[in-house]
C-alpha cells in the first residue's frame, strides 16, 4: 500500500492526545491517516509549557535549582547535574572528588530508574500490562535509596554548584550494593518474559528505523542515536565529572529500529550498574561541598555544558551579563530533538507501529514542554 497514492478523499485526521494512553503526558499528535496508515503525524507541543527559560532569567542563579528537576521527572538528577556543572564551569569552581563520585553514583541510579520506567511504559504501549509492575518494583528500590539521601522521591534537588547538599553514609553504600545484586538477578526474568517473546519481537523488529544521517539532521542523541549505531555518549565524547575514570561500554545497535533502541537501553542499565560498582569501590573520603561564596556573581559571557541525560544529550547554555541573574538560559533537551524525528519516521506507518516507535523514543513530555 503506497501512501502516496492514497486518494485525497480517503484521508482523514485523527487526534491522538492531548489525553491519550500512549502519549505519556499532554502531547498531542495530529495524524493524517489513510485507513490505519499514518501519512503525516504532526506533534503539537506546549500543553504543559512552563517557560522554564524565562523563569531562569527572573531569579538569581541558585533559585533555578528546583526548576531543573521539574523538567524531566524521570531523570531529574541529570538535570541537576548539568545545571550545577554549568555554574561551576562559568565560575571556575573546583568540586571535591567525593562529591563528584556521589554525583556519578546517584546519577547512574537515576538513569537506571528512568530506563526501568521507560521499559514498563513501552511494554504498556505494546499492550503488556505486567512488566511495568515488575520494573516498578525495582524502580521503587532506587527511589527509596535516593529518597534516603536526597530527601525526595522524584523531583530531586540534590546537587549544588560546588558539590552535593548531603553526604552519603554507609547505609547508602550497603543498600546500593544490595540493589545492584538484586537488579542483576532480575534481568534474566525480564529477558525471559519480554526480550525473547515472539509477539514483542514482531512488534518492534524493523519498526521505526532511524539511521545515522537522520540522527545528524535532527540532532537525535542518546539511545536513539546509539540504536542507530552511533556510539555517541556525552560521558565519553565530552567527558565530564569523573566519568573518564570508569570502565564502561557504550552499547550500540545495528539497524536503528525500535528493537535496537530497546536493547541499547536494556544493556545500558547493566553498564550503569558497572559504573556504580566501580564508583562505590573507589569512593574517596573528604568534603562534599566546595567553598562557594554565598553571593556569587556570574562573570559575563556565554557558557555551555552538555551531560548525558537518560534520554540523550542535555545542554545547558547560559549567557550571563555579569550579574547574579542569568541573562539568557537555553536548555537543549534530548526528547525535543528526538521527537522532532516523528513526522519523517512515522510516514506511512501503521497506527500500531507509531505507538511502538513513539514508545521506543522514550519521550518525557514535561521535558519537551519545559
Amino acid at each position, binding site marked *: 500500500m503506497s501512501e502516496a497514492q492514497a486518494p485525497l478523499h480517503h484521508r482523514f485526521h485523527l487526534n491522538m492526545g492531548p489525553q491519550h494512553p500512549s502519549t505519556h503526558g499532554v502531547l498531542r499528535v495530529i495524524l493524517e491517516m489513510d485507513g490505519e496508515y499514518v501519512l503525516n503525524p504532526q506533534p503539537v507541543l506546549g500543553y504543559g509549557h512552563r517557560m522554564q527559560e524565562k523563569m531562569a532569567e527572573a531569579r538569581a542563579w541558585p533559585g533555578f535549582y528546583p526548576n531543573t528537576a521539574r523538567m524531566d521527572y524521570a531523570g531529574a538528577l541529570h538535570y541537576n547535574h548539568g545545571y550545577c556543572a554549568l555554574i561551576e564551569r562559568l565560575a571556575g569552581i573546583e568540586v571535591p572528588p567525593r562529591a563528584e563520585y556521589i554525583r556519578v553514583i546517584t546519577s547512574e541510579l537515576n538513569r537506571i530508574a528512568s530506563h526501568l520506567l521507560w521499559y514498563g511504559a513501552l511494554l504498556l504501549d505494546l499492550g503488556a500490562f505486567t512488566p511495568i509492575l515488575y520494573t516498578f518494583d525495582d524502580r521503587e528500590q532506587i527511589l527509596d535509596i535516593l529518597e534516603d539521601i536526597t530527601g525526595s522521591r522524584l523531583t530531586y534537588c540534590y546537587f549544588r554548584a560546588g558539590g552535593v547538599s548531603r553526604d552519603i553514609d554507609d547505609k547508602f553504600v550497603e543498600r546500593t550494593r544490595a540493589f545492584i545484586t538484586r537488579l542483576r538477578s532480575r534481568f534474566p526474568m525480564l529477558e525471559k518474559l519480554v526480550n525473547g517473546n515472539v509477539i514483542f519481537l514482531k512488534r518492534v523488529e524493523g519498526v521505526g528505523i532511524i539511521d545515522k544521517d537522520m540522527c545528524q539532521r535532527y540532532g537525535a542523541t542518546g539511545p536513539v542515536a546509539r540504536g542507530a549505531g552511533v556510539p555517541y555518549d556525552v560521558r565519553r565524547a565530552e567527558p565530564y565529572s569523573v566519568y573518564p575514570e570508569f570502565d564502561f561500554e557504550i552499547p550500540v545497535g545495528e539497524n536503528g529500529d525500535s528493537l535496537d533502541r530497546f536493547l541499547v537501553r536494556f544493556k545500558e542499565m547493566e553498564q550503569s550498574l558497572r559504573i556504580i560498582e566501580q564508583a562505590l569501590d573507589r569512593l574517596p573520603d573528604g568534603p562534599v561541598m566546595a567553598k562557594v561564596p554565598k553571593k556569587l556573581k556570574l562573570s559575563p*559571557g556565554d557558557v555551555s555544558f552538555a551531560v548525558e541525560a537518560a534520554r540523550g544529550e542535555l545542554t545547558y547554555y547560559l549567557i550571563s551579563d555579569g550579574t547574579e541573574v542569568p541573562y539568557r538560559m537555553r536548555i537543549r533537551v534530548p526528547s525535543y530533538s528526538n521527537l522532532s524525528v516523528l513526522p519523517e519516521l512515522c510516514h506511512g506507518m501503521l497506527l500500531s507501529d507509531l505507538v511502538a516507535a513513539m514508545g521506543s523514543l522514550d519521550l518525557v513530555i514535561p521535558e519537551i514542554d519545559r
Partner: protein
Amino acid sequence: MRQTEDVQRAVQAVAVAVTPVEYGQRGYHLLVELENGRVRDFARIMHDQGYFIGFVTAVHVAPAIEVRYQFAHFDRQSRVMGFTTVDAAGAVPTIADIFPGANWHERETRDFYGVVFTGHPNLEPLILPEEDVDLKPLLKSEKNLKDAAAVRWPEPKVAEDTAAAPAAKE
C-alpha cells in the same frame, strides 16, 4: 585539536570571524560570527562536516536580536557555536531544510522572540497558542536590555596577540 582546525578552515570562508575558545571554560570549541546572509552556507558546511544540530536559539541584546546555533559532532569532540544578528526586518534565513531538526527550534524562537526565519516551511506557532502569536515572552524590557558587548566574554589580555594573528592574515 587538529580536527577543530579543519573545521575552522572550512568555516573561515563564510564567517566574519572564527575564534577558537577554551573548552574548559566555555564548553565549546569554536565561536563563529556570521553575516546574516551566510547562515545557510555555514549550516551546509556544518552538515557536510558531519555535525549534528544542537539547538537554535536567540538572545535579545541591543542593537539587534542575536540568533545562535550550536552544533556538535558524533565522532569527535568538537562543539561549534555560531551566531548572527537579525536584519532590519527581524529576519534570518532558515536552516530547517538543511537540518530538519532546526525546524522546531526556529519555530520556538519565532514564538519567543518574533524572529522571522525566511524560507521556513511552516512557521506556525509551536508552543504558544494561536491567539498569542505576538506575545514574544522572552524579549527583554527596555530596562533590562543589555548591549551585545555586555554579554561577551571579556577579551583575555594575554591571549590577545595570538587570537588576533589569524584574523590579521585574512
